[in-house]
């Protein structure tokens, strides 16, 4: 997996390149918008991480130019501007996800993985499967080992999001954004309780748990066993 990091702050860039490199990615780095655009149009990257405020060419302008050139490499925007309005602008300019600085590295990794996986599950899919757990998007039902499981509408969406990102870490912030459309973190551990309720339903009466807590990061839905690592 090859990533392009466009970030002008040397220290942040170094931190990103090092961290992503250690996580198994091949990383190229550009220090400004022009260089970033040049690399993004010439090289073939699986995803781009770009800072919103860049010298010589603003991150959003660079993204606009890139999308205008017909290059649809998924892009994650990093920005110090965190209002909903700023976020909407970033996504309108062609960004696929938006992360407000400062961020935890685990959050960035989880989001990148979600971006990279986005293409894998096509929109036409009507059934999601993880191990023996099955979620039918049309009938909106959940089954495990062919035994129907009753879930509330919100739990269904929570499970759907976890299943679409199966095998990958999903952070609490990601769940709040995608399942509840809340772009802030409440002080109470609201998500944890929702997840543990869902866990009760899908894992309790089965011997192999699917929904795992990843300490300090978030949750991961995967088939247990030694093979199931990132």
């Amino acid at each position, binding site marked *: 997996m090859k990533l392009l990091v466009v970030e002008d702050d040397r220290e942040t860039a170094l931190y990103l390149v090092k961290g992503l490199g250690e996580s198994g990615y091949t990383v190229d780095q550009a220090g400004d918008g022009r260089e970033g655009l040049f690399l993004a149009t010439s090289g073939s990257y699986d995803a781009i991480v770009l800072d919103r405020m860049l010298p010589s060419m603003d991150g959003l302008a660079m993204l606009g130019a890139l999308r205008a050139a017909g290059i649809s490499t998924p892009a994650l925007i990093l920005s110090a501007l965190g*209002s909903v309005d700023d976020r909407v602008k970033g996504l309108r300019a062609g960004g696929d996800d938006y992360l407000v600085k400062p961020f*935890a590295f685990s959050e960035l990794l989880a989001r990148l993985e979600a971006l990279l996986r986005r293409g894998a599950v096509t929109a036409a899919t009507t059934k999601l499967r993880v191990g023996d757990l099955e979620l039918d998007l049309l009938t909106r039902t959940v089954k495990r080992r062919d035994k129907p499981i009753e879930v509330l509408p919100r739990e269904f969406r929570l499970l759907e999001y976890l299943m679409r990102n199966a095998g990958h870490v999903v952070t609490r912030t990601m769940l709040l954004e995608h399942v509840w459309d*809340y772009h*802030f973190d*409440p002080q*109470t551990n*609201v998500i944890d309780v929702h997840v543990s309720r869902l866990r009760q339903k899908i894992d309790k009466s089965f011997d192999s748990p699917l929904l795992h807590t990843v300490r300090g990061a978030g949750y991961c839905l995967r088939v247990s066993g030694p093979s199931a690592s990132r």
Partner: protein
Amino acid sequence: MIAEKLLLPARGSWTAPRRFFGNAQRLLRTHAFRLAALYFLVFVVSVLGVLLFVYWTSADFVERQTEATLDAEITGLAEQYAQRGLSGLIQIVAARSAGDRGDGMLYLVTDPGGRPLAGNIAAWPAGVPTHAGRLSFTTAARVKERVETHPAQGASFIIPGGYRMLVGRDVSDATAFRNRVKTTLLWAGLVALGVGLMGGTAMSRNLLRRVEQVNRTSERVMAGNLSDRVPLDGTSDEFDQLAANLNRMLDQIERLMTAMREVTDDVAHDLKTPLSRLRVRLELALLGPADGSGQTEAIRSAIDEADRLLATFNALLSIAELESGMRRDESEVLDLAEVARSAAELYEPVAEEKGFVLSLATEPGVRIRGSRHLLSQALANLLDNALKYAGGGEIQIRVLRGDGRAALEVTDRGHGIPEADRKTVFDRFVRLERSRSTPGNGLGLSLVRAVARRHRGTVELADNRPGLRVRLEFPELGT
């Protein structure tokens, strides 16, 4: 001292003309002056027009009257002559000439030799041609024992047989009238011009003065006196409107500046403590054994501290942004019940786990214009607070309406907030004694208030008997 005094008049006499010309030059450049000049020009032209009209109508009228009287007289005499011949004419002329009738009519009939036969003129006036036609002449008139030469107008006729007749009219009154009209109009014109000039100057002065007021205020504001305002005349004319708008702009700027300064003060005051705590932790980690897990633990807790700091900082920025009104509008039409339902749905499991009962009571169709994101955040803060401080029991989210206001309430069954503290808890970093032991930054309610104000609403705390009732009110959107 003396030298100074001696110098003064000389300096004055030099600077005075320079100042005058400087002022004059400045005046010429101003828009106000050009406006005044234009005004004056239009004024002069219209006054001149009116005066000329008055002159022509009045003088002409007198002239036409003279003509008409003469014509009537001549027609009358011609009829007499046609009916009664020369002797009849002489008789009627003699009759009309007798005594002063005060109408200034002049008559004279002479024989072919030029000797007068009848009339009130002594002799055919000198220099007046003897053939028939219209003519102007002068006549000697006796006015109060004095003989004056008066201008007259008339016509002469040749009567068959060589007799001649002169019919005229003394026009000295008409001429005098015309002259008086001329003088009057001239004076009126001069006065009008003077008034116009003064009016133009006054208008220009007034305009200049008011523009100057705006200029002076802007200069003072630029110099740092942000609370200065442009004085209003109270006339609510364009200048007053301009001044009022400028003042409103200055109000807003001042509010922004004050909000910014408050944030800076708060930050300086309340972020220093956690920052120094962070520093101490890192320093202790550095001092400890290099291998130990204690170091990892110290770094982890330092990161946690940094995260809390960042959260506080972000909250502060959001509040300041909301209060200053800098955030661009992201408002939409919202059903408050939807906002409440979504938050209740998110918090219900955690509330239950913590031993609360979270319930929802909503009136349908209570709509406001606002930001779902901001209102959800405010509601989440209130629910966080209730879960943190109420200890247990029922937490209710209510959506209701009353008096054209939409209300969103969160009530709990905890200890409530003493009446004395109900105002101050909204201030930044204010944490009541009871809550010191629980985690938090003292910004939750500040954000709630900022969100309420952002939506042109209010937030109030009340006693829920027992417990706390937080009521947010917004202008309701009509259906």
